[in-house]
């Protein structure tokens, strides 16, 4: 174990996977660039050759489709989209093709592809260069979706995604790249579909998705000062998501806040909220709160941009609402 940043952990996972398995290769935009992937893929072309590290033309659809075909033909491709926004051009190969293939052919073939997409927001980039679209893919049967928030999971989930016989969307957020923690040197897998409790608490369950898991931890610290004892869950996998872990927590605390830095309507936060409200119906003391983006595109101007992204303070406020609710309804609690 040694401390690695999230970006370095991704890079290490790629290097070890490439070294270990000749079927693994990468394709996508920016792979030969010194800065495109924010350090998370540096010099892989130098170390593994440009035959296996294909920096591609601006052809998101065909490059993604090509990787799907290579997966069907026995390879283990990782296709890289340096921004999730661009990946919309590959919606057809991902949703119509990769997601359906196993089912269509009754499991006789499957598509062991990793589709890596980066949420690359902030910096006044605006509406077409900021989107966090994971919820769209969460809706599609046949896709798995992982969103690590910590360096060790970033490594372990990439290995698990490559090992999985199915299409896995691996979604990382550039705001995470400098997060540093101890990461084992050897290759290992973090199981897909398992959340992790980052902080134990008894008053409220905060479920954080991707970068929001860090803000949830920060919020929990602030709340502790106010005497509120929050449990923080880092969801890690969006599909399948760890219902057991989340529901156990909510059944214990009676309150839930979902924090997702994406749009609210019909998003991941809706699914978690709906499921919790139904499955922990008797245990909930207050309505499930959702901390999300407002339902608007991303602005550019700095003032607007600052106000756009949810903060730890927003989580604190949401928790406060659930706590206040408790007081109002104390007598009625089941």
């Amino acid at each position: 174990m040694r401390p690695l940043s999230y970006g370095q952990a991704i890079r290490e996972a790629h290097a070890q996977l490439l070294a270990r398995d000749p079927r693994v290769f990468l394709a996508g935009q920016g792979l030969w660039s010194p800065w495109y992937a924010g350090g998370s893929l540096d010099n892989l072309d130098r170390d593994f050759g440009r035959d296996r590290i294909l920096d591609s033309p601006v052809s998101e659809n065909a490059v993604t489709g090509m990787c799907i075909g290579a997966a069907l033909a026995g390879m283990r491709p990782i296709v890289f989209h340096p921004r999730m926004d661009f990946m919309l051009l590959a919606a057809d190969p991902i949703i119509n093709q990769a997601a359906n293939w196993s089912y269509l052919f009754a499991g006789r073939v499957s598509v062991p592809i990793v589709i890596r997409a980066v949420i690359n927001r902030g910096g006044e980039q605006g509406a077409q260069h900021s989107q966090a679209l994971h919820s769209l893919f969460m809706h599609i049967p046949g896709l798995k979706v992982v969103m690590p928030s910590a360096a060790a999971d970033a490594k372990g989930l990439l290995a698990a995604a490559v090992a999985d016989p199915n299409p896995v969307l691996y979604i990382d957020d550039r705001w995470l790249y400098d997060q540093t923690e101890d990461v084992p040197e050897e290759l290992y897998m973090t199981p897909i579909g398992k959340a992790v409790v980052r902080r134990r608490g008894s008053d409220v369950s905060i479920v954080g998705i991707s970068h929001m898991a860090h803000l949830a931890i920060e919020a929990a610290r602030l709340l502790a000062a106010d005497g509120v004892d929050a449990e923080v869950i880092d969801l890690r996998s969006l599909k399948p998501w760890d219902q057991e872990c989340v529901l156990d927590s909510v059944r214990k605390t009676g309150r839930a806040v979902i924090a997702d830095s994406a749009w609210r309507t019909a998003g991941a936060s809706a699914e978690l909220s709906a499921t919790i409200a139904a499955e922990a119906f008797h245990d909930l003391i207050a309505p499930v709160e959702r901390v999300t983006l407002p339902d608007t595109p991303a602005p550019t101007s700095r003032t607007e941009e600052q106000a756009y992204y949810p903060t730890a303070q927003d989580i604190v406020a949401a928790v406060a609402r659930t706590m206040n609710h408790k007081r109002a309804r104390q007598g009625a609690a089941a």
Partner: protein
Amino acid sequence: MPSTSSTAASPALVPIPPQSPEWLLARWWEMQRIRRAEETIALLVESGEARCPCHLYIGQEAIASGVCAALTREDTLWGGHRSHGHYLAKGGSLTGLFAEVLGKETGCSGGRGGSMHLLAEDVGILGTVPIVAGTVPLAAGAALASKLRGDGRVAVAFFGDGTLEEGHVHETLNLAALYRLPLVFVCENNLYSSHLHWEERRIADNLDQAGTFHSVPGVRVDGNDVESVYSAARFAVGRARSGLGPTLLECRTFRWRGHVGASTDIDVGVHRRGELTEWLERDPIGNLKARLHDVNFAPHIAAIDTEILNALEQARQAPFPPAGRRLEHVFGNRLPSLREFPCDH
């Protein structure tokens, strides 16, 4: 259109000596088998026994037969909505096709796909699916896999003239040229995309040049002449296998039936331009048969019909997929390749 002509941009075709009568008979057999299978499926559609949408290949048989004759079993094949012929020519099981069209458990796709989704991985058919152009980039991926592994396989993408209107086919042409992929693009130009004649969709009749901009050479060939198709396919497959990269074949042909279903277009209200009469005379099977004077076809015809009847009977007898397993296979469960990793940390 009796002769194979190469376009300005494309290298000259290597002439291939005339094929032996045995070879020609084998192609006739293959094509006749495809046609009889399609006619059988047409009857199943008309009677309502088959319910999935079926896009029949009747009239285009020489393309599947000629191209697949140039392939090995290990070469991969990718197709679209009109792929019964590709499936059979590459060696897919006849009863597997019928069973699939009837929605049976024993279908080549386990009754999950129907006519429009066929698979026979044992003979290199890695998938035919009906999203137009959907498998074209996938075929490039199989070619890339072969290139990376050096396994000598060639990938073939079958698609129609309308498919060239999807932009990602052009993206794929560029990728194929750039990476020198062992890939053959087979465009079956039957002049129509659904109800639209090509003149309603494009300015020029030049599909053989679809790859020119991307440096993929193109060859135009009479798609109703199995020898011409084979000759062009051998050329393209040879280029691919020897590392020279992709080729595009434009095979000119015509479908005899409507876009989908058993009827001719006229029945369903699409009036094509009287071309059918003309194209019926260019019957790839009848014309080949006429050349094989010495052959007594009667026993062959009977043998094919018997095979078809038996296969159909088998498919009819097969069960529907068992209830209660509808939720299976959303995810595959082939063993993870990296299972030796320690799990979690």
